[in-house]
């Protein structure tokens, strides 16, 4: 091997060539395997949405389309989905607005208390959800007991307490995403706008805001998916209200209806379709 004659192409053994081919594509091969791993339970959910089961949807009993024909057939399934979507949209809207304002303050201004505000935004992300849920439950229960005692009201855990909690833990994620976008914005663009006779308000609405908008949209998507999929905090502050994850968890004890699989997989497909359409539209607008 060490004495290859000049002019003869070096031809490694088959084993070496296979090894070289694998090495060049190692990362891509692992990546595809990891993606398959991520999708395995989604496939499982999909397949078992067609299961013609009797009592519990665990063993395969044959193919049927009846769950897809009647996705709201299971009691409470669609109600919980609507609740989740409502809470998701509402908390996304509020958290995105509040978080965006905070991000602008933190990136664009120097003021006393900036460091403390940064930490206040960071700490909720470093706090386990169960602690957030437990502490919120404490103030809601204590607060409602007192208020109801004083005013004879009937405040209780439910839709609004879930929404308040979701807004709270989404704010930090929104701040971080919008901050990143703002920090990568070239400050000269705003100077150029001012130089071209745009006052502060016009500079903001014509230049700054459109350029930060993709970051805000991304933050809103993140907030929505965090809220929509949250179970732990919700389970603490939901009272009798049922979101979709809670519906699945609660019905797990008696056997999950296949309608849950139908809804879960449909949400996956809808989200996938929306994101892909969004990307295509975004790409088209860039041209």
């Amino acid at each position, binding site marked *: 091997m060490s004495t290859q004659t000049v002019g003869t192409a070096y031809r490694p053994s088959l084993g070496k060539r296979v090894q070289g081919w694998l090495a060049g594509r*190692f990362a891509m091969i692992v990546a595809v395997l*990891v993606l398959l*791993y991520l999708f395995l339970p989604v496939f*499982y959910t999909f397949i078992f949405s067609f299961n013609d089961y009797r009592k519990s949807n665990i063993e395969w009993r044959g193919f049927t389309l009846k769950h897809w024909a009647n996705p709201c057939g299971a009691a409470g399934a669609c109600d919980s989905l609507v609740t989740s979507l409502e809470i998701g949209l509402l908390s996304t809207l509020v958290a995105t607005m509040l978080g965006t*304002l905070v991000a602008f303050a933190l990136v664009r201004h120097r003021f006393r208390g900036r460091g403390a505000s940064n930490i206040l935004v960071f700490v909720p*992300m470093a706090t386990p959800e169960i602690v957030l849920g437990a*502490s919120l439950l404490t103030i809601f229960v*204590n607060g409602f007991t007192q208020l109801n005692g004083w005013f004879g009201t009937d405040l209780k855990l439910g839709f609004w307490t879930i929404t308040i909690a979701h807004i709270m833990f989404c704010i930090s*994620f929104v701040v971080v995403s919008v901050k990143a976008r703002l920090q990568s914005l070239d400050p000269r663009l705003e100077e150029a706008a001012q130089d071209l006779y745009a006052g502060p308000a016009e500079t903001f609405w014509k230049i700054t805001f459109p350029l930060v908008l993709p970051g805000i949209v991304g933050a809103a998507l993140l907030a929505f998916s965090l809220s929509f999929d949250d179970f732990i905090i919700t389970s603490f502050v939901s009272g009798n209200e049922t979101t979709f*994850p809670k519906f699945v968890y609660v019905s797990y004890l008696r056997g999950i209806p296949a309608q849950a699989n139908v809804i879960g997989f449909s949400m996956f497909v809808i989200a996938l379709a929306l994101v892909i359409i969004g990307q295509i539209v975004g790409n088209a607008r860039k041209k």
Partner: protein
Amino acid sequence: MSALAHMGGGGAPATAMPPKEPSGRSWLPYLLLLPGVLWLLVFFIYPLAQLFAVSLYSDYPDYPGYYYQDVNWHNYVRALTDFLPHFGRSMLYAGLATFFAFVLAYPLAYAMAFKAGKWRGIMMILVIAPFFTSFILRTIAWRQILADEGPVAWVLEHLHLLSFMPNGRITETWVAVVAGLTYNFLPFMVLPIYASLERADPRVIEAGGDLYANGFTTFRTVTLPMSMPGVIAGTLLTFIPAAGDYVNAELLGSDTGTKMVGNVIESQFFKVLGGYPIAAALSFSLMALILAMVFLYVRRYGTEELL
């Protein structure tokens, strides 16, 4: 959702320090901050303070489920002695899950950043998409996949590997819990690492060689340090929720030997009469432990970007 990718950002921001306020407008940043910060103060800081107060309550011995205000540190002693194994499991399982998530996430993030080409956007969407099938649904799916009569156990059985698993099975063991935690928080590891690799100059890495092809040394000395901000963000975003999780242990673990702190907090809150102060003390201990670790970690690897 792609915004999550920004979190591994790191790198030097384009803007310098924000300019000093023009005189007379110093109230503007406070006005911008006010609603968000107020929300966090009322629904984050104040509840934590309340939770702390509750963690020091004492109960009436003759009336279980009734408490009075007190400064009873004994709750913490009980929380940390009676439930020490649960704390240990939480840290261990979360640590293992973070490690495995890192091992799986890095090649994926690397491939997305440098190898995927036009497939990059699609791969990004695929990493995020499973979120929308409820995480509870997916975890229950894992329970069926890992079940004694499920496909994974069947394969291991035929490879004569099943006997290496605890109790000769996967489901209802710590293996299943760690697998579930790894799976559920994997995207939180992938996206920040991808973001930091994407910002790195690929030519620097090419100059150093290819991942795994030209040796581990390039990876360790060139690629990994450049993606460090993303790795730090990713490990935090994986470890923190994993350490506080109880759903995986509940759905995939056994009734006794694999419970984590989260399970104890949840059952003390909802299932044990008079468990309220202990649950609060446990929550607070868990938070203190995690915050201490996070701050040590961030300090050790210095990432201002997170704060």
